[in-house]
């Protein structure tokens, strides 16, 4: 059917770069599975109030250390609190930290990287050498040092993780900017007297979008891992507020008798991070098919 093929070809040609990428993404089964799991986990955590109306702090004193059963699908902890409720409410905190910390470092890192790359010279040197110092300290260590200085709590935890994630974002943004800032269309924009801000946002930054999106996705996953580790050490979210890492840390002493107290929160972390990584990989392949092998 030649007519159909021609129509299909015209269809293909009409697609923009963005649509083309999205099409590739939707075709990727693993990435879609990741996205699907991620959406389910997010919705479950957001609906924690509906699924577990009694809240994460309700103690059923007569039913401590109950194994998974119909009433308590994930069992109960040392105080008789439903693990399902604690995992769902804890997920809110973990996801919040992952997303907010990444958003924070995304904004700061993009601005720093864009300024450094666009202006070059001394500004570039100052910004990048400062970031070199920040990235000389391993991420986990940086987060530990900052959050132990600031103290525990949601906001401090977000700040600590955001600081440790910023240098990588700045580098991701800076590299493509260095490549495009000498291009003719940037020069042309400058000739017609466009402001620096307009050139950066309108002509330069769009080139950065796809590596930035890819880095941000993987950073959300990494941030969640750091956040849970901080809470595991007792630095992040403070009790009685639940958090995935803190749940594992609290249940550690009962690992011999009641291993399910450790396995379920860990499974929640691993599943979330895994689905994010799957989606992130798919996104990378879709946005930059050259890199796919």
């Amino acid at each position: 059917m030649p007519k159909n093929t021609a129509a299909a070809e015209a269809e293909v040609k009409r697609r923009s770069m963005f649509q083309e990428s999205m099409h590739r993404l939707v075709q990727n089964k693993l990435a879609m599975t990741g996205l699907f799991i991620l959406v389910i986990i997010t919705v479950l955590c957001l609906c924690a109030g509906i699924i577990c109306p009694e809240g994460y702090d309700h103690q059923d004193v007569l039913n401590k250390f109950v194994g998974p059963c119909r009433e308590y699908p994930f069992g109960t902890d040392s105080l008789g609190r439903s693990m399902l409720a604690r995992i769902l409410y804890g997920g809110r905190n973990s996801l919040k930290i992952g997303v907010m910390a990444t958003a924070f470092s995304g904004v700061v890192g993009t601005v720093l990287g864009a300024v450094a790359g666009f202006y070059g010279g001394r500004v570039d040197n100052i910004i990048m050498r400062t970031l070199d110092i920040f990235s000389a300290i391993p991420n986990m260590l940086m987060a530990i040092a900052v959050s132990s200085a600031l103290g525990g709590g949601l906001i401090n935890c977000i700040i600590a993780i955001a600081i440790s994630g910023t240098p990588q974002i700045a580098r991701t943004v800076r590299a493509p900017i260095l490549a495009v800032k000498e291009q003719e269309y940037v020069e042309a924009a400058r000739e017609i007297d466009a402001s620096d801000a307009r050139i950066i946002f309108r002509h330069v930054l769009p080139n950065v979008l796809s590596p930035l999106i890819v880095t941000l996705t993987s950073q959300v996953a990494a941030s969640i891992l750091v956040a849970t580790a901080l809470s595991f050490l007792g630095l992040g979210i403070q009790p009685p507020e639940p958090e995935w890492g803190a749940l594992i840390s609290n249940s550690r002493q009962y690992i011999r008798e009641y291993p399910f107290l450790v396995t379920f929160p860990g499974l929640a972390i691993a599943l979330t991070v895994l689905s994010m990584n799957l989606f992130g990989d798919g996104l990378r392949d879709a946005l930059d098919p050259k890199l796919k092998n």
Partner: protein
Amino acid sequence: MARYIAKRLLLMIPVLLGVTFLIFALQLITPGDPARLMLGDEATVADIEAWHASHGLNDPFLIQYIKYIWNIITKGDFGISWRTGKSITTEVVSRWPTTFLLALLTTAISVILGLLFGITAAKKRGTWIDSLVRVIAMIGVSMPNFWFALLLILLFSVRLKWLPVSGFYGPKYWILPCMTMGFLGAAGQMRMTRSSYLDNMGADFVRTAKAKGQTEAVITRHHILKNALIPIINTACAAFAMNMGGSTVLEQIFAIPGLGTLMVSAINSRDFPQLRASVILIATTVSVMNLVADILYAAVDPRVKAGFKKSGAKKKKTEKKNTEGEMKHA
């Protein structure tokens, strides 16, 4: 080569000074007065003044920092503990080898496993072996290390009773911690090795080598692996930094007497000088290992050295940036 190493060493100094300054400056954002924290609510104003004076906290911040650095450089003295008032240098320095050895060992395990499985997956690309290895690696990079450690304890110590749960008294106690970080690190290393190996497998020089009838073994070793090695060294270096930084969590779980456990106890007792010294020591170790990696680059990749010779450090830096940029996308 000697000049190259010397220059890299010189470049490291400002970074290390910056790192120590950054860590030192953290005390500026710490809420509350450390003297009040250490001495308790009953302390009089005079007590607090005396405590400030004896811990050198009355000097301006910059003077404090310069004194601190001067003492570390000239005497190797990391100051005194806020909690006990005793010198912390011996404690910190005696714990360093454990953390360093553990990080080195786990990195070695992950590099060996990662290379082995990465190359296998690349060679068997598209088969079920490739898919299996990739799925396992994907799960590996998604697992929180403390949870994986607990699962290993559950299996090998609680269920099978093969290995001790925690402590650090002999070779038996090293197995579980090394397995935890070694396996998880191997996952990342494998992903990198696979993609880097595949990149080079399709390269023109490999086709040329095949066309002239070169044996498979020589092509693998000489043409592909040597070129694939640069991003692999990069990931190995990142893994080492991660293992050093992640030592806090790992040592806490297995009760290993290294810098990590010292840091956790310092955090719990709000003993900032002790935390500071540990962080500085770990960051310095990571920086030195980065330098070693840079020297390794120059050793495996003549382009790096040649670029350096021609136009000094500048060219070298851009080249390194390029490999870093490529790494991010891999």
